Every structure is written in C-alpha cells, then in structure tokens.
C-alpha cells in the first residue's frame, strides 16, 4: 500500500501529446486516490482527457510526468514488457467499442485472457461459465461477437475484464453505443460485479444518469481533474 492507504494513487500526472506548436496538454497535474472496493465515475465533456487518464492508470499510456501507484506497484515506473504483464494480471479493461476478439466466441474471449496469466484450464472454464451465467449470457457462450447485440457484447467485455480477478477495473464509456435502458442495465451489472467481488472500479462517462450507480465522482475539464463531493451536487 502507498502512503495514503488508498489502493490507487494518482499524483500530479500530466500528459502532453506531441511537441512544439502542435503540443496538446491533455492532462494537467491530475491527482486522485481511490480506495479498495470503491466504484467511482470520471465525468467530463468530450476531449477533456478522460480516456487519457484511465489509459495512464491502466498502464496503456506513458505519462509525461507524475506517478501512478496501484497497491505496491509503481505503474509509471514499469518497463514496456512489465506493463504488458501488469495489464494482463492487474487490470480489467472495458473499452467503448471494438472490445472483443472477433474470431473468438464469448466464452473463448473470457478463456483467452486466462491463458495470459496461466490459469489452469479447469479453473478458467469454471470461472468463465460462472461469469457468463451471472451476466445473463449462459446461452450466448458459443456465439461470436458479430452474433451478439451491443449490450451483450458489453456484458461479455465486463466478464472478460473480471476474468483474471484484477485489482482494478477500468471502463471507458460502456454505454455510449447503447440506449438508456440497456445502458442502465449494463452499468448496474457492472456495479454489482465490482461490488460483489470487492474490486476497485473507474468508469468514464459523460452521461450524468449513470452517476447514481457510483460511490464518488471525479470531474475533468480541459485536463484539470477535480473531485466532486457527491453526485447530487452536480450542477449540470
């Protein structure tokens, strides 16, 4: 654990894309901490730096400055190779789209990530089947992504993100391609899975209605991250 006792600690993280005239400061000294078991929302308009922040937190993108620690791992100090392992073992991602391997079935998408951390086959199969069951996908297990609806695909992606029992689940606009009712359903499921398993989750969204399912809200505007005390104080 780091000094603050939080699971995730983001300290003064900045990200500048490009150099010279074309340099864009996507993230300006962002600082946040998230406790074990918390499910927080990251809210902000398009282009404000949400994706940039969770990419850095999840070890997908290098920060220009600042540090990120997850438990006792200093993510910002890992080599490229160690980052690949870190992503496989410690992080579960749900991306906005293009989330699943198109030539693997729903169940195989889950089983595949288990091979990255060398989970025994039997155990992986049990876990995949259990997750699919919980996500209401038991009868879609053998379908390819192209044979699934958008909501089903996002649910498979949630199962995939949880498959390796990660410390941190990062979700980027899970509802962007879904209608409101389906979006709610997916976020509810996500919350339940994260809470039941005692995971820590960050969900990027620009949909205020999804905020009610989270414990705390961070808001980001032009790369400046602020902590909003509770969702109800949001004056949008």
């Amino acid at each position: 654990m780091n000094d603050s006792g939080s699971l995730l600690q983001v300290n003064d993280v900045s990200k500048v894309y490009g150099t010279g005239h074309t340099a864009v400061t996507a993230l300006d000294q962002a600082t946040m901490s998230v406790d074990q078991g918390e499910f927080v929302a990251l809210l902000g308009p398009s282009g404000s730096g949400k994706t940039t922040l969770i990419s850095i937190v999840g070890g997908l993108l290098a920060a220009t400055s600042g540090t990120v620690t997850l438990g006792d791992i200093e993510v910002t100090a890992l080599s490229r190779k160690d980052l690949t392992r870190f992503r496989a073992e410690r992080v579960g991602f749900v991306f906005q789209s293009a989330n699943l391997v198109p030539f693997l079935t729903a169940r195989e998408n889950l089983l595949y990530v288990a091979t990255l951390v060398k989970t025994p086959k039997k155990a992986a199969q049990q876990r995949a089947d259990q997750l699919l069951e919980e996500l209401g996908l038991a009868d879609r297990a053998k379908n390819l992504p192209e044979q699934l609806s958008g909501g089903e695909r996002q649910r498979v992606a949630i199962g995939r993100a949880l498959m390796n029992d990660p410390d941190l689940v990062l979700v980027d606009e899970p509802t962007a391609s879904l209608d409101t009712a389906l979006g709610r359903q997916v976020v509810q499921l996500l919350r339940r899975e994260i809470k039941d398993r005692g995971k820590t989750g960050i969900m990027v969204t620009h949909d205020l209605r999804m905020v009610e399912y989270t414990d705390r809200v961070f808001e980001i505007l032009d790369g400046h991250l602020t902590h909003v005390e509770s969702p109800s104080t949001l004056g949008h």
Partner: protein
Amino acid sequence: MGLAGAEIRRAKLRFGLLTGAVSLLIFLVLLLSTLSSALVGALVGALEGLNADGIVYADFARDNIAASRMDPSVVTSIASVDGVVAASAVATFTTAANLTGAQADVQVFGFSPNAPGAPQGLSDGRLPTTAGEIAIDGGGATIGDVITLDPAGTSLTVVGLLRGAQFNALPTMYTTLDTYAEAFALTNPGLPFVPINAVAFDVADGADASAVAQRISSEIPDVTGYALDEAVALIPGIESISQSFGILVGLTFVIGIVVIGFFFLILTVQKLRPFTLLRAIGTSTPRLAATVASQIVLVVLIASLIAVGLTLAAVQGLNTGLPVTVQPSLILGVVVSVLIFSLLAGALSIRRIARIDPASAVGAR
C-alpha cells in the same frame, strides 16, 4: 486454446482460398522447373551423363557431336597425349526403330564397356557388355524387350534402363561399338569404314581436364578437346535454352514468393484492430508473433502437400513424351524457400505488430 487455430476455424473460407492460392503458386514453380529440367536433360543428358572427364570433336563439327566425324585411329593418338589416362571412341547416329509396336526415331550410341564414354544413370538392369545388348532411356521399353532397328534390321535386347541419358529429346539406346558399327554399316551401305563422332577421355584423379583438353587440341591436328562440362555448355543452342528456362522458372519463383509474401502481410494488416485489442489486454508481442508465424507455417505446409500432389498428378497425366521425374531435392528446395520467404514476409508484419500502440485500443471507435 490457440488464437491461430481459432481464427482459422472461424475463417475457413479465407484460409482455404489462401492455401489454395499458395498451393497453385508452388505447383506452378514445381511443374515449370520439373518440365524444363526434363527438357534440357532430354536434349543433352547423354553428353552430361557421359562417364568421362572430357571429349574431343573434329574441328569442323563446331562443337556439335552429331556433326563430328573422326577416323577411329585418332583414339590412340589422343590416348598418348600427356595427361590422358584413357581414351575411347564414342559414336552416334539417328535411325528408326520398332519401339513397343510403333516405328519411332531413336538415337543410338556406341561405346566401349569399362572405358571412357559409357553412359551413366542406370535405373534398372545393367549396361550392355556383349553384342546385341542395349541399355535405353525412353520409348517405353522394359528389360527383355527386343528392339529392331530400321532399315538395318539389327535386333537388340534391352538389358538396362537409363534415366537422364537422352539426346535430342529422342529415346536413346547405348550399345557396344561392335554392334553399333554393324548397325551403322547396314544403315549406310558402301562406306569404307564406320566413322566415330568423338573421343571420350579420362584424366588422372585431380588433374585439370580443361588443360589436358587444350593440350589435345594443340598437339593433334584437326581436333578440338573440351572438358565435359565445357562441351555440354557449348552444345549449339543449349545455353540459350537453359537460360530462357532459368529466367522463366526464376521469375515464376520470385513472383510466386512475392505474391505469397503479400498474402501474409495482408492477412496481418487486416487484423491490426484485434491485435491492438489483444496487446491492450496484456498479450505480449512475441505471443502475437508466434500466432502469425504458426499460421504461415501451417498454410505453407498444407499448400506444399497439395502442390506436390498436383505436380505428381500432372507429371503422370501430361504426356509430354519426355522422361519426367520429380526431384525430391527440388520439392524440398522450393518448399523450404517458400517457407523462409513467407516467414520473412511474416517478420515484416510482425514488425508492424511490434509497433502497435496498445493505447490506441482505448480510443478505437
């Protein structure tokens, strides 16, 4: 669960077409090189396969054995040239023969058993040792057949079958010089003596046949000697024929390799999005590379099997009149080079994979 296998199962048509296309390209290369080496072999095999270090023609023959005429007495003069350890007459003419029931042109060679100028490439039986025996390449003859020359009427018994010993792409038979002389005289009545066409000679082990051949040319009037490989290269027209075939086969091979390489490059580039996702969720670059490489190896091996099958079937089915044999070394060489070049193309795509920025999976729309 292998990514490579799963993808092939889910995209059977795409991989089927790819395998089919690759196998056709390999087939084309195999068939072309088999046929061209068969043709070149049939044209000059007799000379190439001559069991001798060098050969001597009459000057006026201009390096063409069929046009060369020599007095048999020249053999002793050549044998006495410094560096020559043995010399023997080689004679040849074209005549007709009754081959497996049909009249056909044949090439007849006369040689001395156990002397320079005997044929090589025995595939069955033995070389002739006494009068009335022949070894033959082509014409569908089998051991024990009796072949009658026309118009000489000489009957010859097949005692050996040869491979790669044809001349002028004709069925070619080898007999002792006595039998040859008898048949030649009967075919060309009234000649004072039976001419020989060339003299084959051997040099001491390790000696330079080319230098000895030059000595023969300078010491003996009206003859020109060559080391055997020089003589083969000088056969009129053969150089341009084999060069043309070389270009044809080489070009087919290069085009085939490039096309196959592109196939595999496209195959990878098509998958950059799923590969980016796989990198983002923690797949290492070496593991993706192994996926690509294993698919290439699988496709090339299956395609090679199909191509070899097609080539064997084509060689059986196409009646070119040439003694065509598919060389295992050719198959191996082509398959191994296709594999190597495909993996090189794969390596290019793996370089592309290594450059994938996993972060781009997040923003992917």
